[in-house]
């Protein structure tokens, strides 16, 4: 038996996971319901009307990419960080360690490039590494310990 409310709840949950913003999800859900009601009023059976309403909304990934363009670069960085954090948390301990190793490898490379460009003396180079790597290490620990 087709249950409209549970179908809509599933759809909204999937959308929330992707797009996150509650107001945007509520707005799209209202659109889905309005489309469904319009099709039902034309005499379409509920299940078919629901499927068609969902497909009319279009590809969620594409819509999300459009929303993404509206966000500031900081918000975009934050949402990418959160996404990356989630995928890291899902991984096993070994994957997390590998993730951490990759972060540090890229940090070391980035710092080396910075220093090579900056053309600084050895003693200040060490200072720069401490200044740059310290907070980044702390930040990555915090990020990884958060679940």
């Amino acid at each position, binding site marked *: 038996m087709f249950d409209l409310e549970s179908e809509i709840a599933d*759809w909204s949950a*999937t*959308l929330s996971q992707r797009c996150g913003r509650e*107001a*945007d999800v*509520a*707005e*799209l859900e*209202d*659109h889905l*319901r*309005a*489309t469904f*009601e319009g099709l039902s009023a034309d005499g379409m059976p509920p299940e078919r009307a629901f*499927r*068609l309403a*969902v*497909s*009319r*909304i*279009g*590809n*969620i*990934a*594409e*819509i999300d990419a*459009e*929303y993404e*363009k*509206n966000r500031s670069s900081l918000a975009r960085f934050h949402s990418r960080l959160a996404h990356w954090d989630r995928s890291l948390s899902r991984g096993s301990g070994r994957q997390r360690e590998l993730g951490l190793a990759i972060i540090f490898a890229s940090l070391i490379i980035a710092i080396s490039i910075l220093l090579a460009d900056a053309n600084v003396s050895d003693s200040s180079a060490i200072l720069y590494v401490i200044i740059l790597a310290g907070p980044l290490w702390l930040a990555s620990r915090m990020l990884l310990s958060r679940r």
Partner: protein
Amino acid sequence: MLGMTDARTVLAPAQSKEFVAASAAPLILSILSHGDSYGYEIIRRVREISDGEMRWADGMLYPILHRLEKRGLIESYWGQGEGGRKRRYYRLRRAGLDELESLRTSWRRMNAMLERLQGGGSHV
């Protein structure tokens, strides 16, 4: 299921993403100049006046609306739709009306240029 698109939502060749993006703003602003409206109604109206030629994937309208709001051309507020459910309405702002006028002028000029070129433009 979510990633599914039916034939209706696929754009005809003449309606590239760029064309849709460029034409959406004047259409939306113009519809809102007749009164406040909401996403579903705006899409229904566009489909109607284009005799079904204009086919947007419905969901694409919302990021465009939000962009117009961010630019201060329109503003949104939450109200009640049928059955008492929450619905987001959009209203044209003064800046949006000015933008609509300037977009109308640009499209009119563009159209006149194309017409002149088609009608044996000797000065090309």
